[in-house]
């Protein structure tokens, strides 16, 4: 795990460099589209807003100066399946965004939805040496968390301390400089398939870019589309993407669970293409133009021209009613939502005090989805759009850009992760100079 710890620290360092230079790129590698935003950081964050959000929701210090979206290629289920194609798509997006911003970016923060994310809740506990919590005590308690068996070929994507407890007091956001005898912490660990991360890393490297951070897109879209009180009181965000549907549960401003269903909008398109015998591009067009989940009597009379290019007059003049189309779309959407509900139930979402569910992502734009979702997921469902960010083009403000915008916020306000704290001295190998230096640093 130390290897990953080091690479995450390197990324953290790169991110700091990029923020100092004031320029960073955001790359959302999705199944249906690849979006690239270029952020310019200027101005200093106003102090005193560490706790509550300011009027600009804490995002007044950056501005989107370049944005580009391109059709994704070579990505399936949020994972890279054809490296060359994906590299080309990333190059297209990055080049267009650079052209718009008229700057060159070297550092990029990426997010992806695949890799079968799995959540683990860890707990650790230490006795404090002197009844006062110091910086290295936090690192020690994080290191004291019992590491679960995350399986072969998996890597840790996020390891965020979500709660600290000092003696009998729990729910501390920052235990430093408080007095007590026993420090305990809860940590949320998110692991993904290592090969997926490696592929993404390699792909970005081939575009001459440095990866300065990596995040799960379910987490990012949760940051962007949940409002402040939802994140505080507890809510789930369901990001319905093209190839996979990500879920993240937030509580007390921290993500406490994340999972994904490998079903998405592309499956709906594939269903339409199969049932109507049309190419995928036509199916996509029909879905976005006429799609829906609730059939009414009006829809029986609304005939949709399917069109075609076969040369067979009968085939090229086919028509379907909108009801038939809805009959194709609805079972698949229900399946996605049911699977999501299943995962949420498995995570114990029903035990949370607040049952708010926010639907976002490109596939959540089907008309009437909120009615269907409230039947499956519960009454408190709303459609979410990402926060507004300065300089974001109008075309990129829809729900399909939730994780892109979330990644901007992630770049501007990174949450403390395990690797942001120094390794405690005990973890270094004995007789190393680093250990001696660390001991000196801690004690003087």
């Amino acid at each position, binding site marked *: 795990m130390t290897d990953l710890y080091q690479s995450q620290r390197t990324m953290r360092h790169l991110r700091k460099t990029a923020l100092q230079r004031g320029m960073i790129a955001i790359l959302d590698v999705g199944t249906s589209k690849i979006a690239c935003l270029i952020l310019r950081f200027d101005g200093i964050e106003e102090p005193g807003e560490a706790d509550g959000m300011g009027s600009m929701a804490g995002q007044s210090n950056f501005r989107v100066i370049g944005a580009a979206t391109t059709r994704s290629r070579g990505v399936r289920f949020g994972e890279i399946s054809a490296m060359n194609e994906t590299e080309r798509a990333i190059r*297209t997006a990055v080049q267009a965004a650079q052209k718009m911003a008229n700057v*060159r970016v070297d550092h990029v923060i990426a997010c992806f939805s695949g890799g079968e994310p799995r959540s683990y809740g860890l707990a650790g506990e230490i006795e404090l040496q002197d009844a006062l919590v110091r910086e290295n005590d936090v690192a020690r308690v994080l290191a004291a968390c019992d590491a679960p068996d995350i399986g072969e070929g998996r890597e840790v994507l996020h390891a965020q301390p979500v709660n600290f407890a000092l003696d009998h007091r729990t729910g501390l956001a920052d235990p430093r400089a408080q007095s007590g005898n026993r420090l305990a912490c809860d940590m949320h660990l998110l692991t993904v398939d290592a090969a997926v991360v490696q592929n993404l890393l390699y792909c970005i490297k081939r575009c001459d870019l440095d990866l300065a951070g990596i995040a799960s897109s379910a987490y990012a879209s949760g940051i962007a589309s949940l409002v402040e009180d939802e994140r505080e009181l507890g809510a789930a965000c369901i990001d319905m993407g093209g190839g996979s549907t990500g879920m993240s549960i937030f509580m007390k401003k921290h993500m406490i669970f994340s999972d994904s269903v490998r079903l998405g909008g592309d499956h709906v398109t594939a269903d339409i293409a199969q049932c109507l015998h049309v190419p995928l591009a036509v199916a996509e067009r029909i879905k976005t133009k006429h799609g829906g989940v609730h059939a009414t009597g009006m829809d029986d009379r609304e005939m949709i021209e399917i069109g075609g290019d076969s040369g067979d007059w009968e085939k090229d003049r086919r028509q379907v009613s909108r009801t038939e189309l809805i009959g194709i779309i609805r079972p698949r959407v229900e399946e996605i939502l049911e699977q999501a509900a299943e995962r949420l139930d498995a995570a114990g979402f029903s035990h949370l005090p607040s049952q708010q569910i926010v639907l976002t992502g490109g596939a959540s734009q089907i008309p009437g989805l909120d009615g269907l979702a409230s039947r499956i997921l519960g009454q408190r469902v709303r459609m979410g759009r990402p926060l507004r960010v300065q300089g974001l083009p109008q075309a990129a403000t829809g729900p399909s850009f939730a994780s892109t915008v979330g990644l901007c916020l992630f770049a501007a306000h990174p949450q403390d992760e395990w690797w942001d704290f120094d390794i405690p001295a005990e973890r270094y190998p004995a007789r190393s100079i680093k250990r001696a230096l660390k001991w000196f640093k801690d004690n003087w």
Partner: protein
Amino acid sequence: MQSLSRAAPYRRDPAPSRWAYKMQRLWLTPAFRGFMRFGVPLLMVALAVGIFLASPARRESLWGMVASAKEQVTERPMFMVNLVSIDGASPELSDAVRAKLNLRLPQSALKLDLDAIRVTAENFDAVARAVVRLGAANVLQITITERQPAWVWRTEGGLILLDDTGHRIAGLAARADRADLPLIAGEGANQAIAEAQAVLQAANPFANRLRGLVRISTRRWDLVLDRDQRILLPAENPVAAVEGLIALNTAENLLARDLTSVDLRNPQRPVLRLAPAALDAMRAAHGITVPTETKS
């Protein structure tokens, strides 16, 4: 059967090639961009100039062109100086200055170095100040302020005229030529002209008897009167000493007596030296007999 409608055109790959992508990124690099916009044009110009000047023949012709163009401008009649007029100096001095300047006229005004001309004129001892300017009708006007002789300095090399700052003006053949000027003598006398002036002014009451001032050891002054009388003044504050002497003279008519010197170097105690005859007379009056010294 093939589709009757127009076949789908070949769709170009929208992705930039790897090289296009790299070139765009390179072009967006500020340092590279600055280099291409300013460095490369500068280098190109420098290269072109270098290639042009590499051949000696072209270099020669270029310099020749520049020189002839310069000549054409400077030799125009409106810039030519034909006449030098020297004002404010005696005829001898102005001739000497003219000879020293040795200007080849007519000459272009643009080539004249007025400052150098001024310095040359001011290098003459007799010239206190020279103003050089190009007057109307391109006449080179040199206005000279001459030094006024104020002292005659007798040195081992002969007589020298000095102005009131002690600066040499010219040599003098005979003292009688400038009998109106006071005489000074001694090494370094010209360094202390101001003091000499003050002493001379103070000694005005017996000016008719004054022969001159002698600088002793570049330190103090002696007043030399007629009848070989000498008044030794102190190095410090000689004017006060002279004034004291005048008071004594008024009271006792001191200088009319048969003295060879009055030593005022110690202000508290003036010392008189009598002439031998007067000394004998005084001793006789006091009834003192001194055995006559016989020199072996």
